């Protein structure tokens, strides 16, 4: 069964419908599926719910889909770097659900692992716990959070083989592996496509079972959000 698609548009063909829920990997602009996001923009699909830790910046990442008003609702933990986001939100054009970052990651992992709900200490006694069940275990209070799944997950990886086994690079891993497990269909944009057997099976981060389609991001300059350096000779 072929999982390799020639370009991002082909890799998304038949998967996009108005109103679907999409998980999009990455932390800030690190490890985001840039080409797939651009292809979603070009498709013109609307009314999306997007689950992503951040919302990109103006003119990059999910910022592309904010510009075109294709996103109806964001489920995120931090959306600070995007001016357009603020404008849309304050004008009521965009719905927003905040999740603590760990709760978001765990909800996605739970969704992928068939766990409809779990308890966590995070958020007890805060706005986050409002309307949710709070229960005591061993004398401490925990809030019940629900698993998350998506119609489609779009993720970014460093290397893939034809089976869909994925390897990520450094902190570009972040939300990508858990989102791969929680998408009904997962499409991976990868920097390198390698021959079967080229990945050491002990080093694979995402087994191919979680990846239905793969597209190579042939040329793509990775953005840096905050360039911080030290002087040589320090």
């Amino acid at each position, binding site marked *: 069964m072929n999982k390799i698609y020639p370009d991002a548009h082909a890799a998304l063909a038949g998967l996009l419908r108005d109103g679907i829920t999409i998980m999009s990997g990455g932390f800030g602009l690190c490890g985001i599926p840039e080409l797939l996001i651009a292809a979603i923009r070009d498709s013109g699909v609307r009314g999306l719910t997007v689950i992503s830790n951040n919302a990109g910046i103006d003119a990059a990442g999910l910022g592309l889909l904010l510009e075109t008003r294709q996103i109806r609702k964001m489920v995120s933990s931090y959306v600070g770097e995007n001016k357009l986001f603020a404008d849309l939100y304050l004008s009521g054009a965009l719905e927003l659900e905040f999740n603590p970052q760990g709760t978001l990651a765990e909800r996605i992992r739970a969704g992928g692992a068939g766990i409809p709900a779990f308890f966590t200490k995070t*958020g007890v006694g805060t706005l986050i716990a409002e309307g949710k069940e709070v229960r005591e275990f061993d004398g401490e209070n925990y809030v019940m959070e629900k698993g998350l799944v998506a119609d489609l997950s779009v993720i970014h990886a460093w290397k893939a083989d034809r089976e869909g086994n994925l390897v990520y690079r450094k902190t570009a891993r972040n939300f990508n592996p858990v989102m791969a497990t929680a998408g009904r269909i997962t499409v991976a944009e990868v920097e390198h496509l390698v021959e079967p057997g080229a990945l050491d099976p002990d080093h694979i981060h995402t087994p191919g079972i979680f990846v239905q389609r793969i597209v190579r991001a042939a040329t793509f300059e990775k953005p840096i959000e905050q360039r911080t350096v030290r002087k040589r000779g320090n």
Partner: protein
Amino acid sequence: MAWSRDDMARRAAAELQDGFYVNLGIGIPTLVSNFIPPGITVQLQSENGMLGMGPFPFEGEEDPDLINAGKQTITELPTTSYFDSAQSFGMIRGGHIDVSILGAMQVAQNGDLANWMIPGRMVKGMGGAMDLVAGVKRVVVLMEHTARNEPKLLRECTLPLTGKGVVDMVITDLGVFEIDRAGMTLTELAPDVSLDEIRQKTEASFIVRVE
């Protein structure tokens, strides 16, 4: 003379012990890594998926795939490991991190912490702050004692909480407070800062046990 930001960071660094795993928040807490006491080794955790965080890269050696939770370019060390966000917060929420040092807008005398939103202003989100204060073994707040001359150490937080009863220590430019079930205790004063000045700039009630 009140403590400078570097003084505050140095004081916070004195809370670290050899072998500790530490998460540093954005702002003043970032400075703590400059003052690790000699002879001890700590590993810095970055909640976007890294343990063993190194310093900023040399110019020209920035790697877009290697950033910290503040989205700044950083470097790796010989001890570094990478992992996904679920494992990263499993570490945090499972109580495996020894200390979290982070900033605050308000701290209440019972350890309540507010540092993520001001109603009516644009809200950026809590990121990993709620997870850190709920899960890490010891939470140290590093903050200015007042904001626009208003106290930040309060009887009760007026802003929405990040966590309830979670703060163990507060280090400000004026002194050091410990918080436990019994309440808040002033344990150190910055040089030439008087108890009167602290009392005047603090709304929270606290007892004094300065050595």
